[in-house]
């Protein structure tokens, strides 16, 4: 989770991210950020997020995203 928040902060240094920050509702992430994030996650966690998982529910908050990474990492 820590690593994930660090990644987010790297993208937008001007925002303080918490696990429950509403990333999409508050328009903090755009599609560019999401794709960048996906490739960072690939690097850091070794988890490839397929296109069909790129849906709003999975990127709503840091927690949701973390859950996705865990789920894909296990599988």
């Amino acid at each position, binding site marked *: 989770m820590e690593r994930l928040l660090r990644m987010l902060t790297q993208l937008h240094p001007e925002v303080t991210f918490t696990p429950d920050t509403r990333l999409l509702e508050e328009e903090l992430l*755009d*599609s560019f950020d999401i*794709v960048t994030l996906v*490739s960072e996650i690939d690097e850091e966690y070794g988890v*490839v997020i397929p296109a*069909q998982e790129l849906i709003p529910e999975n990127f709503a908050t840091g927690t949701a995203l973390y859950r996705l990474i865990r789920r894909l990492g296990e599988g």
Partner: protein
Amino acid sequence: MTVQSPWFPLFTAALLVIYYRVPGQWQWRVLLTGSGCFYLWAGKAYLGFLLLTLVSTYLAARQMGDGQGREDRKKRRPWLILCLTVNASALMLCKSCLLPGAKELLAGSRVEFLTLGLPLGISFYTLQTMGYLIDVYRGTVEPERNFGKFSLFAAWFPQLIQGPVSGFSQLGPQLTAAHPYDGQRLSFGAQRVLWGYFKKLVIADRLAPAVTALRQEQTVGGGFLVLTILYAVQLYGDFTGGVDIALGVSECFGIRLPENFRQPFFAKNTAQYWRRWHMTLGTWMKTYVFYPVSVSAPVRRLSRWARARLGGFGKRVGVYLATGVTWLATGVWHGLTPNFLVWGMLNCLVIVLSQELTPLYRRFHSRFGWKDKPWYGVFEGIRMFLLMNLIRACDLYADPREYFHRLLSLFSVPLWRQPVPALGLTGADWGILALGIGAMLLVSLLQQRAGSLRQLLWRGNPWLRYGLTFLLLVAVLLFGRYGVGYEGTNFIYSQF
């Protein structure tokens, strides 16, 4: 029957009466019959294309979702590719018949009718069924087993002509569910439909002759700038008006279609604009083109490679590539003439440039601190408006050379020395336009500030609500440009 014809409201009203009279499990059949009637009434000649898409997509989805395909993604793939190819080819074929020269080539042949215009709604229902097919392939949506229900999703009449583009998981279940009568919903829907007609008939169509006049003349310089602004207002009224009608009619039936606009002209940069203008197309392109391309294996490999060699920029190469592909697809979807390609690439260029220049902007703002000043917001808004107008003007000239010639003319001669050609509008026209555009602006501002105006009015004095609705009705009836003697204009987006 077109949406602009007075028969359309009558047709809808008749359908509504039946819809709320039959039992819930029959309601979707009423909608399907209504949609069928609408299509037959409006675009009979092109029924074959719609049926091709319906049948091929239905069968392919069944093959993928049931039987052997269910477990094995590899077995699903050929069906996906086959069906996407068939439908994309049909769309491209129809679009290529509109290319200059096609008319002469096809003259006298059996498909000559294709050079007259696109099959009704083909660009929109093709997107929608393709999205459905990919969802089934991905396993995020269960294939619809009832052909009628599936057809209704693909050809739901209010959105057939110019969208919005809906996803199956969102729209499918709504269309087939039972919807008991709800007076508030009905009056909200009717209000939205009226507002849509106002924007289309009173504003967009009243501007249409001026835009046509400016377009036909060899307008350069200042005249061209005026043209881009008028075209922006016309297209806004036309497209948002048409979509408001689609959403309003659906709402009357208890069906919520996705919003397609969120005050796009209040956006402050291009990326923001595209998140607020034609949103459902943007979402579609993002879901089915941008994301898949950007996370596909080759692009990931390219990114890794570029990152190792080019540093910060290399990191973004993959995203930019995906952006390019997305805009290419968006351009082609609008039309096969080269201008739409140029249009897509210009948009792409502006987005990539502004992304690359972000650090520069940050430094600039930390130096001057203008970013939070209210006037700076206004400046950004105007800048975006003019920039998007200039890019959008690409629509108007099939030959990109003509477009660039006009674009450059803006800078070659001082603007104030350019004569503005006659626009062919009377004083009364201008008066109506001023009032109409003022009302449109006011509504947008209020929506930005206070959200749904209809909700606000619903809570207020009912007579105020009745009065305003009636006023809107009278304005549409009296000041709309429609009927015998007017060269009625089709919805602009129905040609894309």
